[in-house]
């Protein structure tokens, strides 16, 4: 008998509030691969690794450490579903493990709310947990309807992989983790020219991210894929809703469905498109659904 592995899910605000279909997809698919999610109360925004970090790094580290404390008190490791949350919580864990003086400053503040950060739990994006702890064979075994012939443009985004020294996920120049997970459900991962280009979302000069997103969508369009597959709600925001804006701005029609990996896994496990909330997307994936039906 294999033991069920337990993790504390940290969905973050983007998924819980804006894209709850991703939360539904994760919850419904993970129960089928032997991962138990133990929900804990009291989490706040991670806080976000772009704007909040740019405002006051010490406060950013402190609020992140408070979130880590909640899992520490339960004695369970955290798994994240958003690359932003992964970045904030992993960076915080790393910095506080390597800088005793900084940890002391953070704990001084945490004392005000009766908490102390010790550094006893790990933080890993759920795809990393799947590959390293659960095992890709379990993903394969959970598939009842392989997505044979489905061509998926892989999009990693920046914060799952970098800084590689801190994230410890994969080679940031030649990552394979998402390809392996897509192959596990029968899909065909497709490379495109701009697959490691940043979407530019954090840049405060609006023309630059628009041009970057346009270039990525153009690069995908050339490959004749059924969808783009990704693992981060912020990237999703840039390409789903963002795709409509880019189509208008550049007077080029794009209709590339953007799908969160766990929604694809759900389809392969026999869940309906509604079960994983595909009906809530801006770019409707009808041709894709016809193909996998």
């Amino acid at each position, binding site marked *: 008998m294999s033991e069920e592995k337990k993790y504390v899910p940290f969905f973050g605000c983007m998924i819980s*509030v804006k894209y709850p279909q991703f939360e539904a997809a994760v919850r419904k698919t993970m129960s089928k691969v032997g991962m138990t999610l133990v929900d804990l109360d009291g989490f706040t925004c991670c806080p976000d690794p772009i704007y909040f*970090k740019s405002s006051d790094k010490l406060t950013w*580290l402190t609020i992140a450490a408070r979130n880590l404390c909640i899992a520490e008190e339960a004695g369970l490791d955290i798994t994240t579903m958003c690359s932003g949350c992964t970045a904030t919580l992993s960076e915080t864990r790393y910095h506080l493990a390597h800088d005793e003086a900084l940890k002391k400053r953070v704990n001084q503040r945490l004392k005000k709310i009766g908490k102390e950060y010790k550094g006893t739990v790990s933080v890993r994006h759920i795809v990393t947990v799947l590959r390293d702890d659960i095992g890709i064979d379990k993903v394969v075994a959970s598939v009842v309807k392989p997505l044979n012939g489905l061509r998926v443009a892989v999009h990693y985004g920046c914060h799952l992989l*970098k800084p590689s020294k801190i994230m410890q996920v994969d080679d940031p120049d030649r990552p394979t983790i998402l390809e392996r997970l897509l192959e596990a459900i029968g899909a065909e991962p497709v490379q495109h020219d701009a697959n490691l280009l940043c979407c*530019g979302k954090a840049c405060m*000069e609006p023309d630059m991210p628009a041009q970057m997103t346009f270039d990525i969508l153009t690069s995908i369009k050339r490959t004749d894929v059924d969808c783009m597959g990704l693992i981060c709600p912020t990237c999703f925001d840039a390409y789903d809703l963002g795709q409509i804006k880019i189509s208008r701005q550049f007077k080029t029609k794009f209709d590339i469905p953007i799908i969160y990996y766990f929604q694809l896994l759900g389809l392969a496990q026999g869940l309906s498109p509604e079960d994983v909330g595909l009906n809530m997307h801006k770019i409707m994936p009808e041709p894709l659904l016809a193909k996998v039906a």
Partner: protein
Amino acid sequence: MVEISFDFKEKLDTTIGGEMHSYCFQCGACVGDCPSARYSKRGFNPRRIVLQTIVGMEEVLLEEGSIIWECTNCYNCYERCPQDVRPVEVITAMKNMAAKRETNPEDVRSMVKTVETKGMTTVLTALVDKRRVDLGLKTLKEIPVSDIQELLTEKER
């Protein structure tokens, strides 16, 4: 005329993430793989930005509309730097300094305010709960915002 600040180095040395800036030997490895350098119309260049920190161009770097806000936070420069300068972190340290002066972009300030007052980057509405229920999820619990507010400063409230 460009104003030079002779104590900018020390200020960066004591700001989290800025500590390594003076180790830069200007090799430019950070530039080749920088998406902002490729797409900027104003010549965003992480090597030049770090040089400007060493020279002490505090006012240029921290003023409203500074080019540092064109960084996309992609972390490619962090990966490439042979000196562990971590240009993106040096830039973030300067963004922290700009935030203190309130010369950071209005959009950033309003996003931060949302997190400080709501505990989230996105605001909860009745529609969210309905969507969650439709998907078979529980409605969201209240976020402990008072804890966040307590943690915003070192001082006792």
